[in-house]
């Protein structure tokens, strides 16, 4: 090893573990991890069927006979992945292969989504430290899945073979929509919400989140669209896709805001206090108002 042994022995182990236990295709996961991978995919497809909150399904089965040849060609292939985390937990992930969508996108349509800049994040956290604010960091689970696809932008996704079987186990209603084409089981799904992988998902998610904040009385910063401010004696929220930071001098105001957002996004994973991790950066606000 080429750096201090004490540091490396611990951290090199983490790096090695990260390299060995990494993401793989679901088919490979079925072979290497076995039943746990099937259970993880079942859970993931169940989330798509049920949605992030009751009454918000992400996909809906479609009868292949009602689809034109062009619609079938434009349907996105589902990408199913398995990840074995460092703690040993097996996680399934289903997303759409949105690369096909770019071909059918008009040149004037922009799907770029804004995100908070590092400078703005550091500036706001510096203000929090200086004004001795209470800081809360929270994560919105299944963030994208809350955003609804516009009706005129209906997207289709295609599931194949064993994933069709798992989907039918999740919800037997899907069985009547399954077709066998050239010996392959195929199920077409209409994507109702911004699923991971679609190129406009990030923008839809941003639009939803920012519109909710505006409804709640926040004003978006004109220089950084992911920084919003509301004057309850001065409150700032900063967000990066599904990670958000909110701060206020009065902890009760922060709690109220988090509770308000819970009404829209369900349960939020919140952490409070002076030592936090946001976007992979660990920071500590010290008593002498410095950021460490």
């Amino acid at each position, binding site marked *: 090893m*080429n*750096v*201090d042994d004490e*540091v*490396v022995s611990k*951290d*090199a182990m*983490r*790096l090695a573990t990260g390299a060995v236990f990494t993401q793989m295709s679901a088919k490979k996961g079925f072979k290497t991890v076995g039943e746990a991978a099937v259970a993880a995919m079942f859970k993931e497809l169940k989330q798509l069927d049920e949605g992030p909150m009751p009454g918000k399904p992400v996909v809906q089965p479609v009868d292949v006979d009602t689809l034109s040849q062009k619609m079938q060609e434009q349907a996105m292939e589902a990408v199913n992945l398995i990840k074995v985390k460092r703690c040993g937990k097996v996680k399934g992930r289903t997303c759409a292969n949105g690369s096909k969508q770019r071909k059918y996108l008009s040149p004037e349509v922009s799907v770029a989504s804004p995100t908070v800049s*590092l*400078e703005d994040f*550091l*500036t706001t956290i*510096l*203000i929090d*430290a*200086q*004004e001795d604010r209470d800081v809360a960091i929270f994560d919105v689970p299944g963030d994208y899945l809350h955003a609804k696809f516009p009706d005129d932008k209906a997207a289709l996704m295609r599931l194949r073979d064993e994933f069709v079987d798992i989907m039918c186990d999740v919800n037997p209603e899907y069985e009547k929509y399954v077709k066998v084409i050239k010996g392959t089981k195929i199920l077409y799904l209409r994507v109702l919400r911004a699923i991971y992988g679609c190129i406009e998902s990030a923008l839809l998610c941003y639009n939803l989140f920012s519109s909710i904040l505006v409804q709640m009385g926040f004003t978006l910063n004109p220089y950084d669209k992911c920084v919003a401010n509301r004057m309850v004696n001065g409150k700032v929220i900063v967000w990066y896709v599904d990670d958000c930071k909110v701060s206020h001098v009065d902890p009760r105001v922060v709690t109220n805001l988090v509770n308000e957002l819970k009404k829209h996004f369900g349960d939020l994973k919140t952490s409070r206090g002076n030592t936090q991790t946001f976007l992979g*950066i660990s920071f500590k606000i010290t008593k*002498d*108002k*410095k*950021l*460490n």
Partner: protein
Amino acid sequence: MVNQLIGAIIAFGEVIKNTTATASKPYLFSVREDTERLDKEKSEIFHSVVAKLLYIMKRTRPYLEPIVAFLNTRVSCSTVDHWNKLKRLLEFIKGTINDKRIIGANGLNDLLTWVDAADAVHPNMRSHTSGCMSFGLRTFHARSSKKN
């Protein structure tokens, strides 16, 4: 960010035995055109390590910005000289691996900005511009780049 720094040192491939007091020599920006080019494998490693340092530098090591910014302009034509410059940078990082970035403010009403330019320090008479911003205690934003 210690993990990422160790990751960059390991990705470099060569053993980093020493530590240095400075991250670069005064002739950092000088480019000798007659130096041997790196082979494909080493060139890819060079590119990868510089990209890793670019990510880390923006978050926790702003004082490395001029060096990383310069090395970043050489990823498509890296030479043995650049490899040695990168090695020296990693030696410096090894010696300061547990350093933490601290930022603070003396007040939020005074935002201090410094900008400086050095003319003709790069090949083809190109200049280098740097700047940083502070609320009075260390810098919270720094930028260093070669002018086109």
